[in-house]
């Protein structure tokens, strides 16, 4: 085995990186893959609560890097998904507690142990971001169809290219089809034209994401939710499957290019 290391980043905060990391991890683990998530947002730990694992933390990422525990001891196993593990961020330290080379070493130790390593990057373009992208084989940029999020995504994509870590793949989160229909929101096609990167997935805005986060249960495990389906589709695309993009509206023409890829019956 040799795990693939995937980093999710965005530049702007609050676009759904942590939610996306938790859900892709849950979806991959449901497909039977062994997944280790790393919360690289040191000082602002959150992946643990989104995954519902906050009560089980003993050791964290900085403990591993500084040698206070073995790697296995910091890996919290999810009882609902036995193939899913979390290495939580330290809460009382900051991003300078670890370096990009620490992250590379840690991921090299994890590679033989699992199928996927998913790293949740902090917002921003400083040390935390550098730490998170250093070990990545593939970088996923999460954005929303809003001017500030798209602008920051462009900046991040430029930095990823400059580090020769590209090409980045794009996830557009919180898409509201009814607003796009009224031409009051950038469509996925608009965002792709502006950013000129490859699209990995589009997640519709779904109030159930909030409910599932409240419960600490990733929405990818909810068979009925559209957002959950969108996350499961992305997980399959990461595995190399060609999964058509979901139809988000009744009138496919809104999504132009995307609609041509839609297979009838895909929910």
């Amino acid at each position, binding site marked *: 085995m040799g795990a693939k290391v995937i980093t999710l980043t965005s530049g702007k905060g609050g676009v759904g990186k942590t939610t996306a990391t938790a859900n892709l991890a849950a979806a991959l683990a449901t497909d039977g893959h062994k997944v280790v998530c790393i919360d690289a947002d040191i000082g602002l730990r959150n992946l643990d609560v989104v995954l519902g694992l906050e009560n089980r933390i003993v050791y964290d990422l900085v403990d591993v890097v500084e040698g206070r525990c073995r790697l296995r001891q910091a890996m919290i196993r999810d009882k609902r998904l036995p193939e899913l593990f979390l290495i939580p961020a330290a809460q009382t330290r900051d991003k300078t507690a670890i370096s990009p080379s620490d992250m590379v070493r840690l991921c090299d130790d994890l590679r033989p142990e699992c199928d996927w390593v998913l790293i949740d990057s902090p917002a921003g373009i400083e040390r935390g971001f550098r730490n998170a992208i250093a070990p990545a084989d593939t970088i996923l940029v999460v954005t929303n169809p809003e001017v500030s999020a798209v602008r920051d995504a*462009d900046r991040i994509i430029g930095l990823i290219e400059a580090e020769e870590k590209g090409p980045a793949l794009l996830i557009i989160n919180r898409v509201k089809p009814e607003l796009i229909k009224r031409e009051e929101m*950038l469509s996925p096609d608009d965002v792709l*034209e*502006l950013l000129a990167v490859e699209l990995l997935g589009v997640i519709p805005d779904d109030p159930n994401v909030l409910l599932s986060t409240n419960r600490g249960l990733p929405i990818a495990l909810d068979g009925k939710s559209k957002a959950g389906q969108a996350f499961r589709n992305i997980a399959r695309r990461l595995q190399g499957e060609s999964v058509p993009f979901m139809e988000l509206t009744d009138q496919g023409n809104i999504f132009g290019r995307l609609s041509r890829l839609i297979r009838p019956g895909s929910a």
Partner: protein
Amino acid sequence: MNNLLNSLFGREKKSARMAKERLKLVLIHDRTDLTPGKLETLKDELIEVISRHIDIDPTDVTIEMAQDGRQQRLIADIPLNPVGRRRVR
């Protein structure tokens, strides 16, 4: 207030189109570090240099940024003035 907004932004234009147009310009400047002011200066200097060698009409010169994938291109269109009498070989 509503009237003011309408007259400022134009009643017809939908906000998604405005977002896209504004982003297009912002991204060009973010990617190239070239402000509209710097672009104007560049244009003036280019015209000056080219005019030293060839006869051009400065008012017809257009210089703009274009996007080609994630690459930015500087496109200059410089029509030459016809030479009055050209010797035919």
